[in-house]
């Protein structure tokens, strides 16, 4: 059984299982939850791209929102100007974002720590505002991104939001499965080797620069997909859809998930979706002032982030693994 | 003023690096601590200077307990540690490295006098006084490290493998200087060395560490003459 779970086929079955579960779930919950489900799936893709880049490859990105923007805008442009079917739009989003990532990654590979952080931050701040300069990008109001109605074959009852949920979940499942395979392959090991000690890795024959650039490229492609999914759920792309706070939120989600492992990605994504709800609930119960509503979500997320970094810096999943490991070691004395 | 170590135990996680050792070094003596790699020599010095926390036991220097305190506090009790690997700060100049050692004393006249004495003993440092420390050769850096330690006007000096990576001629020079300075300043010294012969030659007292325990503990002359020690550590 153990072997089955950890084999390729076993993992594929696992993901298919999740897919079926989600399908059933989607039929039982209300519209709002289904919509949130789509957003959740989007966050899962986005956060996993950061887990790859920061957790496995050790490169800090404060500006992944920019890469989401590139994906989102590419998808919208493909849809509006080429009338491409939705799946092609997503594919274009992935490819364009990955290309951007490849270019950015070659520069980034030469930068360390704070210098890389500064560069990605500048990109996150700078990129969305370009939309105001070029008419084709739709300016401040942005562009429409309409994925169309669900196909008739799914029945009259099938809602728009459910369609979003299906598309997003399918995209997320495929991405996660694919990413898991890559992370477990020699590429994943190479990234971790470079992250641990670049000089030692180079001495072992690994080309650190290439490895880092590859990580950046793949991470960007995934981010582009997430951006396209985001555009789908809000039906538009605009500069204000990709603010700096999005980049920070994604990084927060990655840390909450435990940035070094993919297993906890749901934790981060769930937190990002759920926190505004909790904040609303609290402010409705206790204060009902606009002040609290505006400030509480950000406050909660930040406080959570600080707690996690202080108490479980490697993320809750890694922490549990360590505890289990210690227990096993001590009982084997 | 004596260094009294009793029942010292130091754990690194699950490994017991120092396993219950006790010894005395009288004032003005030079004790050489020798042994194979991993015997616990560096750990011993790091524990005495406060860089590594002790697990149990005690170590007192003229009555006051050295263990379980921060390094900054231990320096103020008259203990100076030249750690392994030429402990100078590469980005600072020679002058700045030296001044660093005397900062906490806040007596600039005394510091000036001490600095002059050190520069007399190591004229190479005087030549390079305003150069950055990373331009110095290995031997010069070791001199600088020792000089920095002496700027604190210690009464107990801990030296960790001063000969590491240095050419034999330079090593001889440095050991000569160590011997001279410590007699001149009336210092008590604990000298950890791989180069067992050179160390025992200038020492009064010898301690052989093996896997965290004391394997032999005698006057230096006796250890040099001891056939087992000679075979194991002195190469003949």
């Amino acid at each position: 059984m153990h072997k089955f779970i950890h084999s390729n086929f076993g993992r594929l079955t696992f993901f298919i299982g999740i897919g079926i579960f989600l399908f059933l779930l989607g039929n039982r919950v209300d519209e709002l939850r289904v919509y949130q489900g789509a957003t959740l799936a989007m966050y899962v893709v986005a956060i996993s791209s950061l887990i790859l880049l920061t957790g496995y490859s050790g490169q800090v990105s404060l500006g992944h929102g920019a890469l989401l923007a590139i994906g989102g805008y590419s998808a919208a442009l493909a849809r509006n100007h080429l009338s491409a079917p939705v799946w092609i739009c997503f594919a274009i989003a992935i490819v364009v974002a990955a290309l951007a990532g490849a270019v950015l990654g070659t520069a980034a590979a030469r930068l360390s720590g704070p210098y890389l952080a500064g560069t990605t931050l500048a990109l996150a701040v700078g990129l969305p505002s370009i939309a105001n300069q070029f008419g084709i990008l739709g300016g401040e109001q942005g562009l429409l991104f309409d994925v169309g109605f669900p196909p008739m074959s799914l029945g009259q009852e099938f809602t728009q939001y459910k369609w979003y949920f299906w598309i997003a979940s399918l995209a997320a499942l495929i991405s996660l499965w694919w990413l898991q395979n890559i992370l477990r392959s020699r590429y994943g090991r190479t990234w971790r080797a470079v992250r641990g000690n670049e000089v030692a890795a180079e001495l072992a024959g690994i080309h650190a620069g290439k490895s880092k650039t590859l990580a950046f490229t793949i991470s960007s492609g995934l981010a582009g997909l997430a951006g396209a999914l985001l555009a789908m759920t809000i039906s538009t792309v605009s500069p204000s859809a990709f603010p700096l706070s999005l980049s920070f939120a994604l990084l927060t989600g990655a840390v909450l998930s435990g940035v070094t492992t993919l297993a906890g990605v749901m934790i981060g994504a769930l937190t990002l979706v759920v926190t505004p709800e909790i904040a609303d609930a609290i402010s409705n119960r206790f204060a009902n002032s606009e002040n609290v509503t505006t400030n509480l979500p950000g406050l909660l997320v930040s406080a959570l982030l600080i707690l996690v970094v202080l108490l479980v810096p490697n993320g809750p999943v890694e922490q549990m693994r360590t505890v289990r490991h210690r227990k096993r070691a001590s009982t084997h004395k | 003023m004596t260094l009294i170590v009793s029942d010292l135990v130091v754990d690194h996680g699950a490994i017991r690096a120092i396993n219950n050792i006790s010894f005395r070094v009288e004032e003005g003596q030079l004790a050489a601590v020798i042994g194979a790699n991993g015997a616990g020599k560096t750990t011993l010095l790091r524990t005495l200077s406060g860089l590594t926390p002790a697990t149990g036991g005690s170590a007192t220097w003229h009555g006051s307990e050295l263990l379980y305190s921060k390094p900054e506090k231990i320096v103020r009790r008259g203990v100076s540690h030249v750690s392994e690997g030429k402990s100078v700060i590469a980005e600072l100049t020679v002058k700045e490295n030296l001044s660093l050692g005397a900062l906490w004393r806040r007596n600039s006249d005394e510091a000036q006098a001490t600095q002059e004495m050190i520069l007399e003993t190591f004229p190479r440092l005087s030549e390079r006084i305003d150069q950055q420390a990373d331009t110095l050769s290995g031997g010069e850096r070791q001199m600088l490290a020792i000089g920095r330690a002496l700027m604190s006007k210690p009464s107990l000096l801990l030296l960790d493998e001063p000969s590491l990576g240095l050419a034999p001629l330079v090593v001889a020079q440095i050991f000569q200087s160590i011997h001279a300075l410590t007699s001149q300043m009336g210092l008590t010294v604990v000298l950890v060395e791989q180069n067992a012969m050179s160390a025992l030659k200038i020492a009064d007292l010898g301690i052989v560490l093996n896997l965290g325990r004391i394997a032999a503990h005698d006057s230096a002359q006796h250890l040099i003459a001891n056939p087992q020690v000679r075979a194991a550590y002195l190469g003949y």
Partner: protein
Amino acid sequence: MYQFINTVLIGITSGAIYSLMAIALVLVWRSTRVVNFAQAGQALVSTYIGYAVIQSFHSFWLALLIAMLAGAVVSALVDALFMRTLFKRAAQGPIAGVAPIIATLGLLGLIRGVLGLVVGNKDMSIRPPVSNIGYTISGHTLAFSPLKLLIVSSVLFLMLILSLVFQHSNVGLALRASAYAPEIARLAGVRVDGIRTFGWALAGAAGAAAGMLQTPDGNAGLSPDSLEFSLLLVFGFIAAVIGGLESLIGAVVGGLLLGLVLAFVLTYISGSLVFITAFVVLIVVLLVRPNGLIGTRRVRRA
């Protein structure tokens, strides 16, 4: 002609403010090798305190002084209570390099959230202590006023004082030693933890000055979500990275360079390209000199 001169003047003034924030970030980096994103949040808190002082005592200068002191204290507390705990806990593991960045980002969000809850999100303003009306030369109004002169001279003055402290004082020596090699510094008797907190205090004061000097200038609003303070952080950080994070002069050079380039783009090209220009400048500089303009690549040995 006058447009050119005005653009230069605008660039120098805004650049000076970025330099102040860059100085704060460089100070923290040189003391503890951490980028403190919460610096902007601390600057916000300090500026609010300054605002409160102005309301009660009607003196900008007193407010500036107290804001800087408050900034120093807040910053020192952040280091002593928050960062030290963080270093102890997240010192190992793969997240070690990233943890301080993320933690300070979290702290920034926390400070803003709490501020918002406490004082509300309304935009406040501070009246300038000296006139903000431009000087005139032969009938043309320059984009330079007594206030802007004050800003630029304060920056230069602070940079000078801080450089002197760092390079030529005992405290500065202790600060540098603690940053480069904390273990050796401890063995030399330096109280490393305390010195690092002092470095943070200096940075907090510089950040507070940036906030206090920026707010009276034109439209800069004071609120927890203030765009100007966000820009202050982002551009200050970019300026610090351009300069190389290793030198205070670098911070000033980076700030002025950034300010000038952005001013020119704003005036002669287009307002919407300003932000992406910052990115371009940064990446061009880092491609040529990966450790910043004034940073030198030092192979750490010993």
